[in-house]
């Protein structure tokens, strides 16, 4: 549990961080809250030679909600997400999901950007971002580009983030007023990643589901956007048959690893249960 040797850098601006990344090359990594990266370094699963700490890059912080557009700086901590009343009213699933990450100590250092950039299928925020159809703002030596969350994740710890790029912010179109939301996560204990979890957003119109978003955590190599589950809901009254069809569609794409959280069959089953429960909760909340 002792990391290898590394040099530590603390840039003040995003440009400085990006030019450090470029000049230090392949063996350099940015560190945000450190609560995924440092454990991996202690296990020597990650052995960066240079750590570029983003904590003093002020432009990476902050939450803005303007005209239905939410922008959250990558270095915003999970605790700040929970604490923001603006976010809680514009996009309440963020607080609900953030409260289910780890424990208060970790959330006070762990960042939203680190959580989504990390690429660990166990992270909770990636599926939430997929459900919200969020976009990630990436800055690199060549400038800025946006990649949507639904296209960002490629495999365990591999994402669309290019070498030399930094995740600057997350952009979310605020869900419609009156939408329903839920993040249902089953875990073994506080501080554990999901055995299975589901993020659901619903919009209802006269008792009929007009729009549905479903995404899954930790039941595949990446977060899973469950488009078929959404299709099973849209146009329905969210009756038992539709809910079960959505759960079945989610189960059909779940390919969880077999680990201490249980055998595959259990985690596939549980994926369906989480989806069904998230739909029920979101439906209750939809106005």
């Amino acid at each position, binding site marked *: *549990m*002792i990391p*290898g*040797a590394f040099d530590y850098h603390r840039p003040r601006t995003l440009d400085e961080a990006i030019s450090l990344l470029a000049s230090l090359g392949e063996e350099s990594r940015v560190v945000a809250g450190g609560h995924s990266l440092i454990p991996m370094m202690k296990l*020597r699963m990650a052995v960066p030679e240079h750590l570029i700490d983003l904590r003093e890059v002020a432009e990476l912080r902050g939450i803005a909600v303007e005209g239905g557009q939410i922008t959250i700086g990558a270095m915003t901590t999970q605790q700040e997400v929970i604490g923001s009343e603006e976010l809680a009213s514009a996009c309440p699933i963020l607080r609900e999901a953030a409260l289910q990450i780890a*424990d208060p100590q970790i959330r006070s250092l762990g960042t939203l950007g680190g959580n989504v950039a990390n690429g660990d299928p166990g992270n909770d925020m990636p599926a939430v971002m997929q459900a919200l159809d969020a976009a990630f703002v990436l800055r690199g030596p060549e400038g800025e580009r946006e990649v949507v969350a639904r296209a960002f994740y490629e495999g365990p710890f591999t994402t669309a983030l290019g070498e030399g790029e930094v995740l600057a912010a997350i952009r979310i179109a605020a869900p419609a007023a009156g939408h329903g939301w839920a993040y249902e996560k*089953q875990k*073994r*204990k*506080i*501080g*554990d*990643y999901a*055995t299975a979890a589901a993020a659901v957003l619903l919009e209802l119109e006269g008792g009929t589901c007009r729009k549905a978003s479903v995404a899954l955590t930790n039941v595949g190599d990446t977060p899973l956007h469950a488009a078929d589950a959404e299709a099973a809901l849209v146009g329905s009254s969210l009756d038992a048959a539709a809910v079960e069809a959505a759960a079945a569609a989610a*189960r059909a794409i779940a390919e969880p690893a077999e*680990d*201490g*959280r*249980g*055998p*595959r*069959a*259990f*985690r*596939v*089953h*549980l994926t*369906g*249960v989480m989806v069904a429960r998230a739909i029920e909760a979101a439906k209750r909340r939809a106005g």
Partner: protein
Amino acid sequence: MNAETPISLEQRKDKLQGLGCSRKRVEDARFTQGKGNYVDDIKLPGMLFGDFVRSPIGHGRIKSINKEAALAVPGVKAVLTADDLRPLGLHWMPTLAGDVQAVLADEKVLFQNQEVAFVVAEDRYAAADGVELVEVEYEDLPPLVDPFKAMEEGAPTLREDIADKTEGAHGPRRHPNHIFTWEAGDQAATEQALAGAEVVAEEMVSYQRVHPCPLETCGCVASMDKINGKLTIWGTFQAPHAVRTVASLITKIPEHNIRIISPDIGGGFGNKVGVYPGYICSAVASIVLGVPVKWIEDRMENLSTTAFARDYHMTGRIAATRDGRITGLWCHVLADHGAFDACADPTKFPAGFFNICTGSYDIPTAYVAVDGVYTNKAPGGVAYRCSFRVTEASYFIERMVDVLARKLDMDPAEIRLKNFIRKEQFPYTSALGWEYDSGDYETAMDKALKTVDYQGLRAEQKAAREAFQRGETRKLMGVGVAFFTEIVGAGPVKNCDILGLGMFDSCEIRIHPTGSAIARLGTISQGQGHATTFAQILASEIGIPAEDITLEEGDTDTAPYGLGTYGSRSTPVAGAATAMAGRKIRAKAQMIAAYLLEVHDGDLEWEVDRFQVKGNPERHKTMKEIAFAAYNQAIPGLEPGLEAVSYYDPPNMTYPFGAYVCVVDIDVDTGVTEIRRFYALDDCGTRINPMIIEGQVHGGLTEALAIAMGQEITYDEDGNVHGGSLMDFFLPTAVETPTWETDWTETPSPHHPIGAKGVGESPNVGGVSAFSNAVNDAFAHLGLTHTQMPHDHWRVWQTAQRLGLTGQPAAAE
């Protein structure tokens, strides 16, 4: 000096803070302020750090070890391998169980993460870098991780070093992977009882491999002083004196030249009883390099190498009459000891006190046989917060009684009440040979059942099952009843020793001239609060306020010899020594008082804090006055001073008991078990400090919850260990821990000087069965008799699915 303001008898008693008082823990001031002094806080000039190269595979032959690259790392001072230890005869070490264990793997590795080389460096970083660069070439051998396959013909021979030994430390070995067979009871009579029984219930009850997982891992600092030839080792030792003697025997360093110091210990739970390669390697490195060497385990090393617990696979048959009277108990245990037999048990008890497995019941005939086997797993087999193999035994009988109750369609509480050893039968000799000192089981059980409204719970459960049937709920309610009898306080030297060291304990008291005192014991607190409670015992015995008594343990240069703290033995053994030493002080004090008061010592009586003249209490001498006189007045016929030492060899073990009830609600769709209620009644004899008892019960129940509901260390077919980090190994937080309701009855031990029995481990012993019985009970109406621990989400879900409850077709594999 008799001019103090008169205070009432009650006030005088209160001032002592003696037996029965919920005195605040004196240890907590430093612990809550982060001012404890643990082994990793020890920093000595020039100190180096050691770290292990560990085997990545479970079974294999070491073909070569190349240290060169590691030695080239700046700051790395040495790399030790078995070949370096061989000339000193320290490449192997004796285990507490009469086996030997490789200190550093000698030609073969036998479990994943086994110690292969020891890198010593200027700091931890250099050591870790060195570890990375030691190149070890292995030849894979087939790993054996299933104890049921260990004794098959053709099973790989694990221990080549003893392959042809047909006789082990505990008798004949039938197979190269066999360690011992240990039996108790009357086999023929038991088999006859089973054959002739009206009803026999049978079950295989496995207790999974778990780990004590104390907050602080194991570690030490070894420092060889080349000037005076003295080796000092600070370490996480639950038995410092035993470590000193064993260290002397192993290293041939004379015992007076070894000093073992246990500083503050952050929890032990059995993990810190054993002797580990890290201790030996640090000592050798310090001797060779002439500077202090520190070794501290990390969490993964702790969980995967030092001292697992359980891994007991118990097949039972229990015979009874049709109306529920138990007539016989038969048990065979397959005990997985891992690669070396490093169990921490008294020498004559290779299966610990497992033969307490007749539990709290008057079972006329019983037989138990235990076969220990080797596998490619880490060694250990410690008593994780229990006396030796007592949790296993208690879990076995408490599950078997429930299984029998199902078969007879009897209520689990009723069958227990029917079979209890009755109050008037004590002292009671069990069919497997123990003499239970005292008990009143029926009273305890009645109190428990009444408090939880047991009949009401059963009625509620019936209604809940009907609602489930009607599809109104997806939750099942379970009620677990468990009653346990522990056997603690090892133990009488006539049958209890560890490596030949008798299991007595000791206390030495010095009263200072001004009437305060210091007491030193052979035990060592790891969170139990000895400094608080032993001072209370003394306060009541010698009339000096507890707050005026310093308590010291853990330094072999100053403390009297004792066998340490584990198996709930401190209060039964060292606590008794403390009371007895106190009585010696009082006896001398009486003679001094008689002289001072100019009466015959027979004319004096003791009252709280003083000797007074019978019938004339105005004429008295307080202990404080007596202490002053003891040092400062020439008393004819008496030596000056006021000191005493007692070495206490207990006449018997003590037998704490208790009644636990657990109520759970199980979500059959998710496998989540919610603990709705947990009631624990403990009878630990005389209660020294009720607050500390409650704290011990809370902690023990939390560990029981952890074991029953989630803790598990497993090995896959390739010999890889799983569950070796806190990501997977279940340590409940406050969120997962329910509210504990505690209660008590008080049945003193007749043979202990103050009647105390010990309590630290009872809640773990009784708790695991209560949780497990509750989970099993939730499904009982569907025909379930037994389902395997831990009752984590997926296993509970699988049970529900097996019983046809999931409401969804099994998802495709």
